[in-house]
Each structure stands twice: as C-alpha cells, then as structure tokens.
C-alpha cells in the first residue's frame, strides 16, 4: 500500500522549503491557512505571510500588487473561491498584466466531502484554463505537487495549482523528473489510453489493473500539466491506442476532458474519447468515497468507459 498524503499537505511543506531558498516568495491566505496548509509558511516566515481575512477578491489583487513590486506571490484559498469568487480579479489584475501570482487552490472537487456542493469546485479547471497567460497544473500526488509548487516560482507569470483535501497515494519516487507541458506515462499499453489528473490518476491505475484481467493493456497518462497541455502525448495516445478515456474530479465540461477532446480534434487521427468526470451537476454532502461512487468517479467506471471506447473505436 502506497503512502497516503494530501496534495495540500505537500503544498504546505513545499512552500516552507521554497521560502527558505527564495526570500522574494510571499504567501497570502484568506482565513483558511490551517486548511490550505499555508499556516506552515506563516509560522516559518511570518514577515512574508499576508493574512487577508475573508476577502478573496482583495487577496488576488493584493497579490497582484505584491507581484508588480517584484515579489512572487502565492495566494491560497479553497478552489471554489480562488477560481470562482475571485475570477475577474485573477483575469484582470493577474493574467492580463502577466504577474507572478501563483494561485494555489485547495479543496478542489467532490472530495471536499461533508461541506457539500457549495464548497466543491467542479468548474475551476475550466475557468482557469480559458485565461490567456495562465498555466494550469493538477498534481496527482505529493511528489509532483512539491515539484510544481517549486517550479511555479521559476516559470514567469500566473500559475493555477489545483490541490485536494483528501490524502491520496504517493505515485512517484522523490527523484522523479517532471517537465512543464510534459505528461508522465505511468503505465504502457496500446489498447486504450486513460488520461487522468489529480486523484483520478490512481483510480486510472486501478482501472488498468481491472482491464488487464480482461486482456486489455491500458496506457495510463498523468496529465498534471493541463496548460500547457502535452499535445504530443495525446497525439501519440490517439495514434497508438485508437481510444482515449479522460478521468478527472471536475465537470466533464471544459476541464481535462474538454482539453483532451479539443486536442484530439487537431491531432492526426480521429479517435473516440470517453470523458469520466462530474456530469454537469453540483456536488452534495457525503463522505468522499460515497461521493466518488455516486458521481461515477471510480476505477470501475473508468474501466467501463475504456471498454465502451474500445468498442466505439472498433465500430468506426
């Protein structure tokens, strides 16, 4: 059994080590520092932590001001507020002027759990992905989270990092190398490609195990870099596998599935795409596993989508 660490916890830890290395890094939070894990940075570097109180719009534009004055500003709150409440501040005060604001949003997706639909961001990837100058990352485990959080300080301009509340399996060794815009292939196979992000990557690996029992070899791709998207990995998946399944803890509209479907239309080969995600509905209160089950975000539903997709490909 792999070690379980929430990506938000990896974020908190990475911020502290980044803060020790770079004194131009500042962190802002909107009264959720114990949940977003920026409290660790606040404790280590109180002079570089800006507690904004419950005012996400003010936080994003204040972060923009700090960045305009030469700081690298990490701004954290829940995804529903970061991408939703403060959308237009992120658009006009951060992305339009291409400022070094790194929006690190936690509690994304259904696995927020008990708090219910008002707090479960299912649209944040779509909202952030559409903004010019914005880079969007959805890390699947603690290792890639740590890399992304540190990498965000190196890439110029706005970055959105989508983080989860729930502990998830560690998938990568600490020495794993990553690249912006380059997906990680976790399993090879040429019968179907499962392109996943966030906690659905580990579900995709389980789905691949289910499929192998049926003699189907699935390729599992961790598309942690949603923007820039790894177009080459998608084109290769289309060419080699002929069938693509996407899996994300996000609406099937506009997120990873949308991005992959867009990319497939311009890839050399036209292949069927099945999108696993939240089917244009809001979430509800419940335990994370109950919610994933109820909304069809399970290894079984990914495996079934793979079978449907392969059947569609054969029928083409």
């Amino acid at each position, binding site marked *: 059994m792999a070690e379980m660490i929430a990506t938000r916890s990896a974020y908190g830890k990475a911020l502290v080590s980044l803060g020790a290395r770079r004194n131009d890094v500042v962190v802002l939070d909107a009264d959720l520092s114990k949940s977003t894990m920026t409290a660790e940075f606040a404790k280590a570097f109180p002079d570089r932590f800006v507690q904004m109180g419950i005012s996400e*719009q003010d936080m994003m534009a204040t972060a923009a001001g700090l960045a305009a*004055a030469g700081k690298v500003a990490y701004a954290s709150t829940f995804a529903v507020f970061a991408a939703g409440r403060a959308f237009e*501040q992120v658009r006009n*005060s951060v992305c339009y002027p291409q400022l070094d604001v790194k929006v690190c949003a936690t509690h994304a997706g259904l696995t927020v759990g008990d708090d219910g639909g008002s707090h479960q961001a299912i649209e944040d990837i779509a909202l952030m992905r559409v903004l010019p100058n914005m880079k969007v990352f959805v890390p699947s485990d603690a290792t890639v989270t740590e890399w992304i959080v540190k990498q965000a300080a190196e890439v110029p301009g706005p970055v959105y990092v989508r983080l989860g509340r729930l502990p998830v399996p560690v998938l990568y060794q600490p020495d794993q190398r990553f690249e912006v815009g380059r997906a990680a292939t976790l399993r090879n196979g040429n019968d179907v490609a499962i392109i996943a992000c966030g906690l659905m990557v580990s579900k995709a690996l389980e789905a691949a195990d289910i499929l192998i029992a049926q003699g189907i070899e699935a390729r599992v791709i961790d598309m942690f870099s949603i923007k820039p998207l790894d177009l080459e990995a998608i084109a290769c998946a289309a060419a080699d596998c002929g069938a693509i399944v996407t899996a994300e803890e996000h609406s099937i509209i506009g997120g990873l599935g949308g991005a992959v479907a867009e990319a497939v239309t311009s890839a050399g080969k036209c292949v069927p795409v099945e999108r696993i995600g939240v089917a244009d509905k809001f979430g509800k209160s419940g335990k994370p596993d109950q919610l994933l089950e109820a909304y069809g975000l399970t290894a079984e539903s990914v495996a079934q989508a793979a079978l449907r997709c392969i059947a569609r490909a054969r029928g083409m």
Partner: protein
Amino acid sequence: MPQRLLSDPEQLRAAAVRIRKNIVKMLGRSGSGHPGGSLSSADIMTVLYLNEMNVRPEEPLWPGRDRLVLSKGHAAPVLYAALAEAGFFPEDELLTLRQWGSRLQGHPDMRTTPGVDMSTGSLGQGLSAACGMAIASKMDGAPWRVYALVGDGELQEGQIWEAAMTAVHRKLDNLTAIIDLNGLQIDGTTEAVKSLRNVADRFRVFGWNVIETDGHDIPAIMKAFAAAREAKGVPTCIVAHTIKGKGVSFMENQVGWHGTAPKPDQVEEALRELAAAEEVRN
C-alpha cells in the same frame, strides 16, 4: 531627496492646462473614451507626476520609484497626458490613444505603456493592488510610496472596502488614496444611482487618516500630499472635491460627458477655452 519636476504652483497650473488640452485632443482623435473623469482629476494627476511622486521618466521601471495605481482606469487619458508631460514618452504619441498598434490602450496596461505601474480598468481592484505594492515596500524596508486614484462611483464596488480594511489593518502609512469626488457616474449622480453618503466619514470610520481638499486647488493638493507623508501608522485618504469635466465649460457637471468623446468642433471650442484659461493666468 525626491526628484520633483516642478515645484512652483503657477508652473503646475500651466502644466495642468496643457494636460487638459491633451486630454481633449486625444479623445477628439480617438473618437471614444472618457473626458469627464479625466478632466476632473487633471489637477491631482499633475501634482502627483510633476511634483509629489519620486519617479524617473528616463527609467520607468526604476525599482525605487513611487507608484501610482489608476484604480479608475477609464481615466487613462489623464494618466497618459501626465506621463507625457513628465517625459515618459513623446507628447505626439498621445494622439495614438485607443488605436490599433498603439502603446496607449483604452485602459492602462502596465505591459505596454512606459510609466504605467498597474493594469487597471475593471473598477474596484486598483486599491487592492496599491495595498499589495505598499506591503511589498514595507517588507523591503523601502522608502517608496504608493498612490491610488479612485473614482467616487467606484466606491460602490465592495472590494474597495475590503482593501480599505487591509490598508488600515496593515498600517500602510506609505499608501495615499485619492478619491476623485466628482459626484457623477454613467447613469446619473452618485447620489441618485447609489448614494455614497459622506465619503470622508466612511473612510474615517474604517480607520483612515482623512484629508478633504478642493481637487482643483493646486497648492491645497500639494499640502494634502505633504500632510499624508507625515501620517504614521495609518493610510491617508484624500477626499478631493472635484467637478467632472473641469476646465471645459460645456462638459462641466454633465453626466453625458462621462464616456463620450468630443466632436471636432467641440474639440476646437474646448481648446479655445483652455487657451483662454492659460492666458488669464499668464
């Protein structure tokens, strides 16, 4: 010592007239834009760029400069005219306002125009950005100051009051907000659209050091900025009582001139009036 381009109030008055003339010319040429709120803040902006702020027009990104955030970004013409007057770019370039390929975008864009410290235009966000800059200056123990020009209609945006709390909470005495209190917004008077009641009182209640001034009296504006620099531990809000469209009689206090550019004959008439104002003073 800060570099002051001009210190004589008479010279500043003359510069303000030149800035107003340029606003009228730019808008006449572009055929669109916002004359009312540009003219109402022309004296304030003149004092800021030519007297109060420590800037280096030849080095617009000088890290030690004072910063201005034009929170009421639609008043871009007054910012551009003031920057040109201060020497950030050639005056001729003003006539390219809002045109394809121009460095002078419809609303301020820090990435294209020398001297523009923050991209603005969506109301309510600039004061927050100014707070962020002021926090950065404090973190670095730097002496540079931050100014934010805020519209009165803009005070209807909730984010302004979030930022108003931030500035006080963080004791940003290196921040000066100037409210261009001209009393008009697109759909009518601020009183009719959604009353701001007593703006000075509201900022006072939020904990700001508040200074009320005539926004067209150059020595008074200079005095207000000097007093703001003396305030310790609190940000200063200068409530500047202004006249929308100030300096062009047919635009003064006329709601219709919020976002309508003058036609060629109106440009001529406005320039004649402004030239006359220049002569009277000379």
